[in-house]
């Protein structure tokens, strides 16, 4: 039972991360459209920001994994 609740939590974390990364991606596109010559720098900054958000989402996934493991044992 705990496993499925943790999975819902992981799903919520992924939802938040998806929104966040989507926003970063959209803003980066806007920025590149406005300043195509700075696309390299924008891309790097975008990847770092996306990775930081993804890290938070993965904490949720790890909690989900813990649930999965507890469900097994």
């Amino acid at each position, binding site marked *: 039972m705990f*496993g499925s609740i943790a999975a819902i939590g992981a799903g919520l974390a992924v939802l938040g991360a998806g929104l966040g990364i989507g926003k970063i991606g959209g803003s980066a596109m806007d920025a590149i459209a406005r300043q195509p010559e700075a696309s390299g720098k924008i891309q*790097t900054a975008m*990847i*770092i920001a996306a*990775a*930081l958000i*993804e*890290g938070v989402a*993965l*904490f949720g*996934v*790890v909690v989900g*994994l813990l649930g*999965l*493991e507890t*469900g*097994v*044992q």
Partner: protein
Amino acid sequence: MAMLSGLKKIFVLTVLMFTTVFTYASTDDHYAQLHEEQLAEEEREFEVSKMIMHHIGDAHEWHLWGPSHGGTSVYLPIVLIDGGLKVFSSSHFYHGETKGHGDHEYIVGEGPAEGYAMMHETIYKLDENGQLHLEDGHPSSEASVLDFSITKNVVSLLMVFVLLILVMFSVAKFYKKNGAVAPKGVAKFMEPIILFVRDDIARPNIEGEKYKKYLPYLLTIFFFIWFSNMLGLIPILGANLTGNIAVTFFLAICTLLITIFSGNKNYWGHIFATPGVPKALLPIMIPIELVGIFTKPFALMIRLFANITAGHIIILALVSIIFLKESAAWGALSVPMALFISVLELLVAFLQAYLFAMLSALFIGAAVEEAHH
């Protein structure tokens, strides 16, 4: 060059030494018969999470193909420190008697492994009665034993080591032989990536000429993670190395130690007396900043581990659909999806190596930054 070939000889010897310890076992008819009932039961209820957990975890055998009991595997050496060093093959566990029930099932070792038991790939000491002593459903602390076995991940680690040494030494050899010329062959492939690490990871994040000091570390960590990630994606040959928290834990510890030991006055000043913060707030700020030192590498550890493990889980889950539904139509759907995720994982393999090196460079850069006031 003499030293180089000497090193190569040592690698070959090491590999040979390990292969002599491995005992290779193919399908054992007698063994298969013994567990026929169990196998039939296993086939009937295919447990996805159990299979996935088994695949992404570490093991004392390198399972190649066939059923999980009685299939073809390479048995890896077990190294225990229990009143002296004990080295024996893990086949003494995998062929042993199964005891216990359900999640607490364990295998009792035989031969040189007598007196030990393996439960969920962890080795415990048996008590005087030849039983595994359980407390609240877990083996008691008395049963634990120091285990430095050459597990599947350790072998994978050595494979990455040998691969990296071979590739990078041949690149270095090219330059030694030809001098400062335009690269060819392996060097031509690797040089842009090495320059990428130097020009896009180290140089922008670590100011001035200081990046030169940290470049070897950043290069090594980048290529180690990248090669491990890529090797982990190969079926049969690959293990979930960078998706193991012990490996990412060590890599994160390295970055943490380098950050702490290269931190200058300015860095510590920002932590213990953050500029622009009122004195009254410092008792709150200092613990937050101190925790921040540890959360950064912690996030590095979790990010790499979770990304790679999640990739493996998704691929395994997609492949599991075939065994759950037992229909060709589901196979036609799951195989292309698994392939797509595999290709995506190639990108993730590079991206995670880049991110780990990039964020390490960022943390080190913050530690060695001079004051700009």
